[in-house]
């Protein structure tokens, strides 16, 4: 068969063409904030090993306007990250059956969201409990 002349259209800027793709990019991009935040916490741990003075300096640096803006942004990104990943969670697991009936995807998504809220609240309770 002779080769057919075809035309393939470029895919540049594909993630801006559809809101679905843009949200996908937000989901993926939010992991950058998760990484940066983890590094900030690790730095805190490292400063703690250097004594109280070093740790206090680290804490003081978190009160700077740039750090505060970053925290607000990071919180928003963490919420996006959590919600967007729980949204696709059912797709990453085999069908779950309880009493022979398949658990609907939305139930799995909701369970994930509830677990996230419960863990967050529990963390704060423990935090307030151990804080003098």
């Amino acid at each position: 068969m002779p080769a057919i002349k075809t035309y393939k259209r470029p895919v540049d800027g594909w993630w801006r063409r559809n809101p679905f793709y843009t949200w996908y990019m937000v989901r993926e991009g939010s992991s950058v904030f998760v990484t940066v935040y983890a590094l900030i916490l690790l730095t805190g741990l490292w400063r703690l090993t250097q004594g109280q003075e070093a740790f206090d300096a680290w804490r003081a640096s978190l009160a700077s306007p740039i750090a505060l803006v970053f925290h607000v942004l990071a919180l928003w990104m963490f919420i996006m990250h959590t919600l967007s990943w729980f949204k696709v969670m059912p797709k990453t697991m085999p069908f779950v059956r309880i009493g022979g009936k398949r658990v609907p995807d939305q139930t799995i998504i909701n369970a994930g969201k509830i677990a996230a809220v419960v863990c967050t609240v529990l963390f704060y309770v423990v935090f307030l409990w151990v804080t003098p």
Partner: protein
Amino acid sequence: MAETRTITIECLRYNPETDSEPRFQSYDVPFTDDMSVLQGLQYIKDNLDGSLTFRWSCRMAICGSCGKMINGIPQLSCQTFLRDIFPARVKVEPLNNFPIVRDLAIDQSDFLAKLQSVKPYLIPKDPKPVSAGTFKQTPEQMDEYYQYAQCINCQLCYAACPQYGLNDKFIGPAALALLHRYNADSRDGGTAERMEVINSEEGVWGCTLVSYCSEVCPKGVDPARAINQNKINSTKDYFLRFIAPKGGR
């Protein structure tokens, strides 16, 4: 007599013999409430411009031939109605991510080769003669694959998949969903044969769970789920080969 209104249909045109790149051409099409985008295109071909080229066959969302990008979204043109788009214009383009052969018709050969590579047929676990009777299956066993068996090979999911757009070596949503449809079937024994496709770089690991494939599927198939379940299977396959007899298969 149903009310007739006029809608503008903008079609991507490409003639490989004369055009270096595609262009848009607009047509004013009278339509009634019961007309699909496909019927709009047929009106153009019959009355306005006989050279407009597009694929179609059954007109009832079962053959999977008439998929197009309609206002930027991969849809079956027989299932999308002009009344729902009016008064806006309808922009019809060939499915994204595929080479255009002419106008709205894409080259499907890449998909067909991929479909063949996943061995989309039952490879019986224990072959038995017809005289031995049918293979039996419980409703629960059928439920494991039934949804994936609804695929009509319309390729909307490929047009929805940015990973396929960026790298057409990726086996892609529909072929991997059909691969899983047979692997998940209790009568099938071909998993080991299909594992090579799953494990390959062009297999399930090419997917980054954008999951738009599952959104656009006109038949409620969930290719993103099939692919991502097989990431678990691929991981198990990789590790079990070291510890389990026969690689855990």
